[in-house]
C-alpha cells in the first residue's frame, strides 16, 4: 500500500496531454503510464512513440487494442440558463502494431496502424449552436511502415513513412425554415488521404536511464470530392445545387517529443515525456464547393490555432505480492490549449486540460500480454465568444477512456 501511494504521489507532479483534436491513445501500456513512451521500450507501440526504439525491442510483437472514448461536453450560453450537452456517443480510437526482426539482426521492421487525430462530437439538432455545428465525426487512420536499426547496444534509430486515411462527417443546421418551421441542414461527408513521416532516436547511456526523441511530421489530409448534401425547402433547391461536392484540406500537425525512462530497480519504471505540437499550421477550416451560387458560397472559418505543449509522467510497478504476472501503472499530464481565445468552436471545445491515467497489465501466458488502461481527462471550463459565429458561452468537458489490448510476442 505504501508503494501504491508512492506511485500516485510520484505521478501527480507531472501532468499531461491531448489538445485540439489530437488523440493520444496509441498503446495501452503507455496510456496507463500517462501517455509516456518516447523514452521507453515497452512493446510494439514503440512504432508510434519512437521508431528509433523499435530495434531495441527484445522480441517480435503483434498487438492490437482499442480505447473507446466518451467525450462529454456541456455548454451554457452567455446570459442564459440553458444547458446543452453532447450525446453519449463512443468514439473508437484503436491501435495495431507488428514488429519483426531476426533475433540476431540489428534491425527490425514494423507496421503501425493507429488513430492519432479525430473527434466525435454530437450536440444534436436543437441546441443553441446548431447553425455552427450539429455533429462532427472526424477520423484519421495512419498506416506507418517503419524500419529501425540498432547502431550499438546503447543507440538505435528508426524512421517510418505515414499514409493517412482521413474521414469526415459534419452536420450543421441551415437557418432556412421549411413550411413546418424545420431547419435546413448541410451534411458534408467524405474521405481523403495525406502523407507524412516519422523518425526517432533512442539512447540508453546508463543501465538505469533511457532517452528518446521522436518527430512525427505534419500530414495534410485532402478531401478532394466529399459529398455536400443540403436538405432545404424545395423552393430554394436551385440555390443549393445537387449533387454537389466539396474540397477541404486539413493539416494534422507535426509533433516533437522527448522522453526519459528511469529504472531504479527491477520492479519500477518511471517515465516522463514532453511534446511540442505545431498546431499553428491549422489556420482555417475551409470548404470549397464544386457548384457555387449566390447563396452557396465557399466557406472560410479562421481557426488560427497556436502551438501547444504537453507534459506527462507515469510509472509502472511489476510484482505485486510477488505475482510477477501483474503490472500496475499510473500517470498523468497537462496540456495547453491549441485554440486561442475567440476561436473556440463546438467541434472542438478546446481548453487547457489535465488527465489522470491508470493501467493494469497481465501476463496471460508466456507470450501473451493483456493490458487495461483507464484515462480521465478534465478540460477546464472556458467562457468564449467565437469571433466568427458570435456563439457565446461556457464550455466544459470531461473525457472518459477505458482501453484494452492484446499483445503477442515471441
Amino acid at each position, binding site marked *: 500500500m505504501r508503494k501504491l501511494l508512492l506511485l500516485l504521489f510520484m505521478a501527480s507532479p507531472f501532468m499531461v496531454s491531448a489538445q485540439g483534436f489530437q488523440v493520444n491513445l496509441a498503446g495501452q501500456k503507455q496510456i496507463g503510464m500517462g501517455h509516456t513512451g518516447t523514452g521507453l521500450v515497452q512493446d510494439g507501440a514503440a512504432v508510434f512513440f519512437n521508431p528509433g526504439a523499435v530495434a531495441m525491442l527484445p522480441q517480435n510483437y503483434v498487438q492490437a487494442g482499442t480505447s473507446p472514448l466518451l467525450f462529454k461536453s456541456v455548454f451554457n450560453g452567455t446570459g442564459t*440558463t440553458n*444547458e446543452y450537452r453532447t450525446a453519449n456517443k463512443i468514439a473508437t480510437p484503436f491501435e495495431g502494431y507488428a514488429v519483426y526482426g531476426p533475433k540476431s539482426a540489428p534491425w527490425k521492421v514494423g507496421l503501425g496502424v493507429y488513430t492519432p487525430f479525430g473527434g466525435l462530437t454530437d450536440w444534436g439538432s436543437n441546441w443553441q449552436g446548431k447553425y455552427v455545428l450539429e455533429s462532427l465525426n472526424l477520423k484519421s487512420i495512419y498506416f506507418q511502415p517503419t524500419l529501425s536499426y540498432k547502431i550499438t547496444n546503447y543507440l538505435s534509430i528508426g524512421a517510418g513513412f505515414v499514409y493517412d486515411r482521413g474521414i469526415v462527417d459534419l452536420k450543421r443546421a441551415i*437557418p*432556412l425554415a421549411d413550411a413546418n418551421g424545420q431547419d435546413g441542414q448541410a451534411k458534408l461527408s467524405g474521405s481523403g488521404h495525406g502523407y507524412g513521416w516519422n523518425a526517432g532516436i533512442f539512447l540508453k547511456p546508463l543501465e538505469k536511464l533511457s532517452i528518446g526523441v521522436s518527430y512525427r511530421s505534419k500530414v495534410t489530409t485532402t478531401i478532394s470530392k466529399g459529398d455536400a448534401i443540403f436538405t432545404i425547402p424545395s423552393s430554394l433547391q436551385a440555390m443549393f445545387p445537387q449533387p454537389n461536392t466539396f474540397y477541404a484540406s486539413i493539416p494534422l500537425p507535426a509533433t516533437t517529443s522527448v522522453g526519459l525512462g528511469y529504472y531504479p530497480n527491477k520492479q519500477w519504471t518511471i517515465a516522463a515525456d514532453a511534446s511540442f505540437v505545431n498546431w499553428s499550421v491549422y489556420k482555417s477550416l475551409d470548404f470549397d464547393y464544386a457548384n457555387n451560387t449566390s447563396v452557396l458560397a465557399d466557406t472560410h472559418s479562421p481557426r488560427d490555432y497556436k502551438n501547444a505543449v504537453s507534459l506527462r509522467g507515469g510509472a509502472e510497478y511489476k510484482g505485486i505480492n510477488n505475482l510477477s504476472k501483474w503490472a500496475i501503472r499510473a500517470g498523468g499530464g497537462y496540456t495547453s490549449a491549441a485554440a486561442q481565445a475567440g476561436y473556440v468552436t463546438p467541434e472542438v471545445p478546446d481548453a487547457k486540460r489535465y488527465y489522470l491515467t491508470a493501467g*493494469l497489465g497481465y501476463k496471460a501466458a508466456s507470450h501473451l500480454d493483456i493490458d*487495461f488502461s*483507464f484515462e480521465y481527462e478534465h478540460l477546464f471550463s472556458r467562457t468564449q465568444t467565437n469571433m466568427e459565429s458570435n456563439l457565446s458561452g*461556457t464550455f466544459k468537458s470531461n473525457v472518459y477512456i477505458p482501453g484494452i489490448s492484446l499483445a503477442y510476442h515471441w
Partner: protein
Amino acid sequence: MNKLKHILILTAGIAGLAACKPEIKTPAVSRGSADFTRYIAVGNSLTSGYADGGLYLEGQLNSFPSIIAQQMQQVGGGAFVQPLFTEGQSNGSGYLKLTGFNSSGLPILDTVKDKLAIRGIVSVPTNATTAIKVTTYTKYTGDINNYGVPGIKLTTAFLAGYGNLNGYYERMLPGEAPSASNSTAYIDFVTAKPFTFFSNFLGNNDALSYATNGGVGDVLTDKNTFATLYNQAIAKLTATGAKGVVATIPDVTAIPYFNAVTPAALLAGVQKSAPTVTSLFVNAKSSADATSTTYAVRELTNSDYMVLTFPTAKLGTLVSTPYGNLPYGLTKYTPIDNQYVLDQNEVAMTQDYVNAYNTTIKTVAASKSLAVCDIYSFFNSIKKNGLTEDGIFLNAGYITGGLFSLDGVHLTPRGYAVVANEFIKAINTQYGSTIPKVSVSQYRAVKFP
C-alpha cells in the same frame, strides 16, 4: 483472491468516474429591484405578436412580451396570459404565406384563408354622415397580460369608444361593436387591474401609419400632442408604483417595407423591355413642412422610398390622359401615385417626428427612472451592420434577413426573440436584475415552401 480485489477496485473506480458528467454553474438569477409578479404588455401590433400581415396563434405565442414573461418566470415572474386565438381558429385574422418565387426570383405571396377567427364586418358610424368598416374577431374572455392591439396609436389609446373602431381591441371588450358599452379608453382598460411591471411600446403607429401609406390617408401625430399623451400614459402606468420598460420608435426607413422595392430596381426592370426609358415619375410632396399640402410631379430618385406593396405590374400599363393613352409611371402626365411612395420630403418629415417622439419617450422614462429599450438605435444598427447571433447572420433584408416577416414591418419569431433580448437587457440594466436571455437560434425566421 487478491487479484480479484484489485480488479474490483479498479473497475469500481472506472465506473464511478464514467458516471459523472461535466457540471456548469449557470449564473444565479435575480429580479433585482423590480417585481415581475404581474407583468402587463401595452402596445400595438408589435406587442401582440402580429406577423406576416396578420395576427395568428403562432405569432401570438412568439410575441416578444410572451418571450420576456417566460424568462421573467425564472426570477419570480407570474403567469402571463395572452388573448390567444383557439387552435380551431389558429389563423386568426389570416396572414401572408410565401408560396414560391417567380422566374425573376421575386416572392409569390398568398393569404391564408382557413381557420380564421373573423366574426364579421360591421359598419361603425364615425359621425352623422360617415361610417367605417370594422372587421371583428371571435371574442376573448379571460385574464389578459398582453394587451397588444394591432393598429393602435398613442392618440387612439386615449380615445373613448376606440373599442368600436378596432376589431382587435373590440375582441377583448365585453360589448359588440358598435356599442356604447365599448367606451372604455384603452389606457383605462389596461390599467384597470393591478400590476407590478409593464412594457410600453405605444407610439409606432403615430408615425408608421402615415409612412406605410406613402404619406396619404393618415397624418403624423402632432409632436406636442404626442408629448402630452405620452406623459399621461406613463403617469397612469406608474401611478401605483409599478416599474417598467419603454421602447423607442424605429426609423421607418430601417424596415424592409421601404427597402425591398427600390426606384433603381424598378427602373432597371422597365428598361429590360423599354431601354429608352431613363426616368420614372412620381407625384411628390413639395416640401418637408408638415403644414404644406403642395404636391408636384417630378422624377423618382433613389432618395424616395417605394412601399413594399407597390404593384410593380402596374408600371407601364396604359393610362388614359388628356394627351392620349400613356404608360403608368413613365411620363410626367402619368406619375406613380403618391400612396406608393414615401418621397424624400415625407421621409425627412417622418424622421423628424420620430426623433421628436423618441426624445419625449427618453425624457419621460428618465423622469420616472424607467428602463429604455432603444429599438430606434438597435434597428438602425442592424440596418447598417447586420447582427450575428448563434452563428446566424441577421439583417434588415426582406425575407432573406431573418428578422422581418413577410409584411416587411413586423418581425419573425426570430426577430421577436432578438427584440425580447433587447428588452431584457434594458430591464436588467435599469433594475439590476439578471433575467436570462433566450437563444435566438431556437426561434424560426421566414418559412419557405
